[in-house]
């Protein structure tokens, strides 16, 4: 590529990041081990909004094709897999995570030591993040010939009504039976299952409370963590939510960030502007964020990382864990109405004392991106803050050009400078 050279900032990496690498490796290795002759642990392919606590309580190992897509994209390696899917007839306008995943299983190749994800014993997708995953998981089910469960979460346009909660809860009950059968396990008794489930939910709750605490630490000036730290450090809350490992890890992150705050050590040297990022990371171009860092702009919040702070199961539902899950899994960021999403964004802008919002208009992800123009308008008109919309894609670099984007970033920074 003959893009102009962009002056970028050196990362001030967290020391916990070293441990994070090990966690990622261990997670994927355990998935391969599960499928080895001695493994005997069933593997489920799940979406990022799937109610994994149920699977964990049943002793099933969840793996996340979306996370795998992000991993492949951050190695700038998504293209050949996307192209393989396109060759097979999948439109290049489809979600690049889906194309990456489909490409890897069609080719039987991937980025985990050359391997794709281990094949699933069961497939679980929740519609709460998009309509895409329903169709994508159908494709996988046809390919692997394995059982598929779709958790159908009606749109929480203005919150939830009791019929919706009952419908989702009924499906969760059904999922317990489905997953047990698909994993060739005996369906557990209600009592035994719910007590195990409550333990897992408690671990999720602890994780989420640490996570929200970490986000709150970023209210400090300078912020102890910017977008790159958070994008990479969301791996455990996505893939290991509901485990002790996850809780332990975020304790360490909390400690390190607290220490940074105490010492006034910022993620970005000479923090001048505080920004919010909306939408998925552009995994193959972290240099864009570093470019902002080099100009004193730090990210103090991301709707994308904030989204994981929502799995805060209501303790008043403790006697009915499935009900609590039905609620929470219906209310996640990509399943709520635009009005509620706007409130969440505004709240974040205020709590993190942000000066502007950067919207990554992600071509792959309609569910996240459509509506951003309305949100950007609201940020400008109602909060009086500048916005920047970047046209890109989280994994498919063909939809993106770094040069012109940098020019637009410069113009945005000038507006911020004028406001300061």
């Amino acid at each position, binding site marked *: 590529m003959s893009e102009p050279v962009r002056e970028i900032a050196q990362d001030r990496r967290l020391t916990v990041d070293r441990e994070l690498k090990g966690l990622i490796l261990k997670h994927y290795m355990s998935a391969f081990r599960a499928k080895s002759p001695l493994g005997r642990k069933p593997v489920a392919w799940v979406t990022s909004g799937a109610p994994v606590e149920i699977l964990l309580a049943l002793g099933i190992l969840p793996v996340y094709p979306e996370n795998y897509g992000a991993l492949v994209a951050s190695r700038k390696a998504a293209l050949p897999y996307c192209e393989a899917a396109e060759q097979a007839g999948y439109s290049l306008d489809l979600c690049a995570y889906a194309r990456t995943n489909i490409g890897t299983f069609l080719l039987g190749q991937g980025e985990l030591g050359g391997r794709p994800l281990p094949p699933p014993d069961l497939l679980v997708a929740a519609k709460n993040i998009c309509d895409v995953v329903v169709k994508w998981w159908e494709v996988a089910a046809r390919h692997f010939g394995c059982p598929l469960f779709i958790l*159908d979460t009606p749109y929480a346009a203005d919150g939830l009504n009791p*019929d919706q909660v009952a419908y989702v809860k009924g499906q969760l009950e059904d999922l317990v039976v489905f997953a047990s059968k698909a994993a060739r396990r005996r369906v557990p008794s209600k009592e035994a299952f719910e007590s195990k489930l409550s333990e897992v939910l408690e671990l999720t709750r602890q994780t989420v409370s640490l996570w929200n605490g970490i986000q709150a630490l970023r209210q400090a000036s300078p912020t102890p963590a910017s977008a790159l730290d958070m994008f990479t450090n969301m791996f455990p809350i996505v893939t290991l939510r509901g485990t002790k490992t996850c809780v332990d890890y975020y304790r360490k992150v909390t400690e390190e960030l607290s220490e940074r705050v105490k010492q006034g050590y910022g993620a970005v040297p000479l923090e001048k502007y505080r920004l919010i990022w909306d939408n998925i990371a552009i995994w193959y171009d972290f240099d864009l964020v570093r470019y902002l860092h080099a100009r004193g702009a730090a990210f103090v919040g991301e709707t994308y990382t904030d989204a994981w702070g929502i799995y805060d199961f209501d303790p008043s539902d403790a006697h009915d864990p499935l009900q609590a899950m039905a609620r929470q899994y219906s209310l996640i960021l990509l399943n709520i109405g635009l009005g509620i999403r706007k409130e969440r964004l505004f709240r974040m802008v205020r709590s993190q004392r942000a000066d502007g919002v950067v919207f990554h208009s992600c071509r792959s992800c309609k569910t996240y991106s459509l509506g951003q123009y*309305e949100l950007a308008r609201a940020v400008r008109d109602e909060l009086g803050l500048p916005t920047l919309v970047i046209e890109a894609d989280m994994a498919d670099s063909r939809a993106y050009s770094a040069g012109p984007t940098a020019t637009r970033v410069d113009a945005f920074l000038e507006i911020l400078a004028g406001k300061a």
Partner: protein
Amino acid sequence: MTNSTASGAMDRLLAAGADPAAHAPGPAVGYVCSYVPEEIILAAGLHPVRLGARPGPTGPADSRLQSFSCSFARALLDGLLSGRWNGLEGFVFAYTCDSLRAAFESWRISAPPGRLVHFLNLPARIEGPGVLDYAASEMRRLSEALGGVDGAHPPTPDDLAWAIGLIGAVRQNLEGLARVRRARPDLLPGSTYMAMARGAAVLDRREAATLTAAVADELTAAMGATVSPSRTPSGAPPRPGGGRPRVLVLGGYLETEEPLRLIEESGADIVSDDLCLGGRRLEFGAGDDSDPYRRLAAMYLGRTPCPTKHPPDRRFEEIRSRATTDGVDGAIFLLQKFCDPHAFDYPALRDTLAEAGVPSLVIEVELGAVSTGQARTRLEAFIETLRQTARTSRGPGHPRGAAAGARGPAASRAGRGGGRM
């Protein structure tokens, strides 16, 4: 029924389909998606109008939805924002896909005050525990919302039974017309059929029922007069129409009949379809009478599924069997650009059809049209291969040869520009 009555009926249906805003009587409620039960709107004393989208470049919607939302959603929003539908009392959207959900969100920010903007939050699953109950609860919620619209009343069970009957009659007539199209695409080309079906989703449904019945009767009679066996010795439907290859067309909601006309002009007869306004609108579940909303829920859950519904098995099976029973030589996918649900199904459906001996071609549609130049060349080439395979496998004695050159009254209306919105 005289010929001129039927011809007048057809003209009226085509005119309504071409210009819905001018043909919908008030007080009317616009709806998007064929999963919205017209029956409930009717039963509330309102008039249901299927909201389409004007083809061509979009204007105000471009600053609301990115260019990677499907052009249908964008053009639909554009029509709404530009005031085209300001005469309507309300708007009902249904939960199908991410693009349409976003169009709803934008519209509810900008809709004129005092209008109902309702989101029919139907399940994506069409079977499984709780699906029927939940769908019925959403139908009831729609009914309550509509009951509050100016000029409407809360629907009674009798109102609903009447409306179910009326819509059932329209559907039955459309099915009759589909049979004519299947047996005699020379009498009723697929593009004309679809243009009439579009009109039947716009006009007063009592009128639509009368008009569709008139045309169906007339064409069925004409069909009986010119073709003797209703089935060939092999059991397949006859193949008249000048030896033109018979195709099945698959896709979503087409903004115009333009792509269908292009297929016909390129030399094929459209005898079968899996389109939103066409084939997917004909078969519905039965449902029992205990409660009208449960009945409606069962009807809509049981209809020919669209790709936004799960599981996909019944959809695949129905398409496969339709291709066989309708005796098609090939299939043409009209893929709406940026439509995720259809695009994900395409490779597997293509393979399913291929296994059933039906070759297919995929053409992208955007803003109501195909990118004509290249698409025409590809269509002509594909249809030519169909013609050659059909010739070698059928031989000269095939019944299709018999009706060569016979073009019926409907054919003249299928010309370019006849049904443009």
